């Protein structure tokens, strides 16, 4: 199995995405996925639904646009990586699944989907290009990059720590 980084790299190439912000909605549409919005008061982020006729991504429209982008990316991960299940419902995608009682398989798919989403929205190659000549990562840079990639500052902060240099 290719790594998540490789999978995302191939996907970005196929969709001809060369720079941030990554157009997650266009990528979804290119694969025939509808994006459907509906408000939900609470911690539900989104869902991926496969029926015999169509596949679509549901997004909680009450969330911040950046968070909605993350949700689309997360559901795309389920679409590409977890083909067996026809329904993925994502509540609290940020929670630490290891504390949860739910089955190990679900935990693993959610962790994987989050890794994929982070990689898709903030691709390693793009980020390395951006921080290549920078000596020190400070709050200003995190905020600048968060705007550039259209993600939350927290997501960017975590991502920069993970990517390393």
């Amino acid at each position, binding site marked *: 199995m290719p790594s998540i980084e490789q999978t995302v790299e191939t996907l970005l190439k196929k969709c001809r995405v060369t720079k941030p912000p990554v157009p997650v*909605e*266009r990528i979804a*549409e290119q694969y025939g996925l*509808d*994006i*459907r*919005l*509906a408000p*939900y008061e*609470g911690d*539900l982020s989104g*869902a991926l*639904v*496969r*029926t*015999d*006729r169509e596949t*679509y991504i*549901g997004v*909680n429209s009450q969330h911040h646009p950046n968070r909605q982008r993350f949700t689309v990316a997360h559901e795309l991960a389920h679409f590409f990586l977890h083909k*067996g*299940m*026809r*329904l993925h*419902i994502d*509540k609290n995608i940020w929670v630490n699944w290891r504390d949860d009682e739910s089955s190990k*398989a679900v935990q693993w798919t959610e962790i994987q989907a989050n890794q994929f989403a982070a990689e898709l929205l903030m691709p390693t190659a793009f980020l390395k290009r951006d921080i290549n000549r920078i000596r020190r990562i400070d709050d200003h840079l995190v905020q600048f990059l968060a705007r550039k990639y259209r993600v939350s500052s927290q997501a960017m902060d975590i991502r920069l720590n993970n990517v390393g240099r």
Partner: protein
Amino acid sequence: MGNRDEICKRFGKLLAGRRTESGMSQQAFAKAVGLSRTSITNIERGRQPISLHTLYFMADILGVEPSDLLPPAPKSTVALALTGEPESKWTAQEKEQFEKLSAKESSWLQKIAKSAPKKKGS
């Protein structure tokens, strides 16, 4: 409708609960409704369906709204609307997922199932 038995069972449980809350015995309730005690037992065990006007009558006797006696739509209805497949075709994992859905989550899923896609190219 393959869900008839399940709906009757859940209605029966709900009815029995409400009746007990009201402090009425099966016998007393049967008399008020104008049915035999055996019929009430059967209804409460989900073995006998009732008609719509009986539902209103029972609610009136118990001092509740008719809707208080109606169980929420079975998860299988939501799942069928979403997947287009009957319950027998779902995997164990899917079944478990549907069971865990709250009423609010189910209604959100039904909303997106019906909603038009977001405009292309946005």
